[in-house]
């Protein structure tokens, strides 16, 4: 039986699970016309879970015989996940109503997906990583196809599912091999086994870790495991795409951090070459292809791929600076990227979405506030000071330099120079191009406005006054690397 202490320590996850269930039951009681109550109800659940996270701050609890760890690292990541979920729900409320898919299951699945991500962030056992990943993935397969009769959504769902299951196969095979080498799937146990068994060069372990890495790379969309991303983002409902771009990525990186920090820290040196290569491919691939995009969602998909590449730099640096910058980057990325998606959601006339880049022409004069917000998000994504994106990039690149990967940082800076082209193109189109026909219409909704507002605040706040968040991020890594 779990002890009371364990139940308290895992209360955020429990709250979220119960809340997801409660949404299902409420869904039965509420008339179709008033389904948006569920959105607020879900948000309340997120707030409660977030509050529980806060109250647990500073603890370091190892639960369920090592299967789960509730420490500052998982709490920080959980907060990022909860925040992103909240923003995406605010975006989704009106959207799913207008596009006639307002079912309670949307909220249930979103909450469950977040729960999956939180489990990955706190996993102490590869089994929990695997199960958390599956909870997250299955929910996302369904959410991508939530517009059930729309061929594009079905296609997105199918592609994501087939490739996701394919990747799971590799992940699982990798776990099997790691287990074969070390005899356990507990992360702490693996670390002990590596030291005591002298497994540093064990080919089975290396093979297993490689396959495990492949599985996670798929989730965070590193090139060449990224192919699903643009298609799925384009086909999925826009709030889901935004949600995926942040939550799936953050959860993937969370699991990667956990696994590398707790289990494979001793092998870290062997992976730099491979990770550097992946980071390079990912940054360059994402940015170069993004240059040629004319659909906003695809553009952001490739941009999110490129950002995964930047984040990888922090993982490669593998010092307290690098890893805390990964955490900071995820938070900053959550705000700016979800903000950009929220703008896409807002640019909608009932069912009709304006997704082409050219639809953004004339936005600057027609919807000045929306355009200004989009400009802020784009500048932040491009890394122009003084936004969150600039500081996040600065931290990550600085960490790479400090850890002796100057050449990688140079290539990353070059990449972000390149990336400025397509982000600025959006701004240029919004402000400097006359619309070909009618200017895109905008949907007004308080929830959506709140989402955009929060995202703007977050983007600016993390750019100007990042100290608090950086301190939290550093405190999260204390147990692993010392200060």
């Amino acid at each position, binding site marked *: 039986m779990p002890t009371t202490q364990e139940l308290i320590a895992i209360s955020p996850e429990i709250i979220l699970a119960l809340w997801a269930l409660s949404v299902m039951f409420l869904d039965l009681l509420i008339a179709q016309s008033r389904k948006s109550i569920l959105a607020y109800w879900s948000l309340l659940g997120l707030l409660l879970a977030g509050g529980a996270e806060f109250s647990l701050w500073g603890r370091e609890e190892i639960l369920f015989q090592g299967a789960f760890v509730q420490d500052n690292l998982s709490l920080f990541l959980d907060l990022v996940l909860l925040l992103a979920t909240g923003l995406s729900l605010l975006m989704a409320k009106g959207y799913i109503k207008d596009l006639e898919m307002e079912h309670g299951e949307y909220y249930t699945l979103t909450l469950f997906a977040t729960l999956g991500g939180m489990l990955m962030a706190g996993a102490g056992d590869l089994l929990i990583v*695997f199960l958390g990943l599956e909870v997250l993935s299955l929910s996302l397969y369904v959410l991508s196809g939530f517009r059930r009769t729309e061929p594009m959504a079905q*296609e997105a*769902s*199918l592609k994501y*599912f087939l490739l996701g*299951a*394919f990747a799971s*196969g590799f992940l699982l095979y990798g776990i099997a091999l790691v287990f074969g080498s070390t005899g356990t799937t507990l992360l702490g146990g693996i670390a002990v086994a590596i030291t005591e068994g002298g497994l540093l060069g064990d080919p089975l372990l290396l093979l297993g870790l490689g396959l495990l890495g492949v599985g996670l790379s798929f989730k965070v969309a590193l090139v060449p495991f990224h192919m699903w991303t643009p298609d799925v983002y384009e086909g999925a409902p826009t709030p889901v795409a935004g949600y995926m771009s942040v939550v799936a990525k953050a959860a993937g990186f969370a699991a990667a951090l956990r696994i590398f920090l707790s289990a494979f820290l001793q092998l870290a040196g062997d992976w730099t070459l491979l990770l550097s290569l992946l980071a390079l491919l990912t940054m360059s691939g994402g940015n170069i292809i993004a240059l040629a995009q004319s659909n906003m969602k695809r553009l952001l998909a490739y941009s999110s791929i490129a950002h995964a590449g930047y984040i990888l730099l922090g993982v490669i640096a593998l010092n307290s600076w690098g890893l805390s910058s990964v955490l900071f980057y995820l938070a900053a990325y959550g705000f700016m990227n979800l903000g950009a998606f929220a703008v896409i959601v807002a640019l909608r006339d009932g069912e009709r979405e304006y997704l082409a880049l050219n639809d953004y022409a004339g936005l600057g004069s027609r919807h000045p506030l929306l355009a200004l917000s989009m400009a802020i998000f784009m500048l932040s994504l491009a890394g122009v000071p003084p936004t969150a994106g600039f500081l996040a990039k600065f931290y990550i690149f600085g960490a790479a330099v400090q850890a002796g990967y100057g050449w990688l940082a140079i290539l990353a800076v070059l990449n972000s120079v390149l990336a400025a082209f397509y982000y600025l193109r959006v701004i240029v189109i919004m402000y400097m191009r006359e619309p070909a026909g009618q200017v895109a219409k905008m949907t007004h909704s308080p929830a959506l406005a709140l989402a955009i507002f929060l995202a703007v605040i977050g983007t600016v706040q993390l750019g100007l006054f990042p100290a608090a968040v950086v301190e939290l991020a550093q405190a999260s890594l204390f147990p692993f690397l010392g200060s």
Partner: protein
Amino acid sequence: MVPVANYLILSAVLFTIGVLGVLIRRNAIVIFMSIEIMLNAANLAFIALADAKGSLAGQVFVFFVLAVAAAEVAVGLAIIVAISRQQGTIDVDEINLLKW
């Protein structure tokens, strides 16, 4: 005793067959079944390794994998059913609206 390497090589072969099935076939259901072969190969490796290691953790893991596989099947088949109904095909090469 059969050496554990035999089982591992068998599982590698099965895994590869599954991968090839995913790559070569166009029928979504067959692709899906190929993925099941991959999972099964991983399970085989797990059980073999658990036996060689003398640790039951591998068996427990496989138990959960079976549950996951069942869940995946439910969702996967639902997606395939929906597509088949709407678009009348489950040839993945025909399902190709999203690209570039």
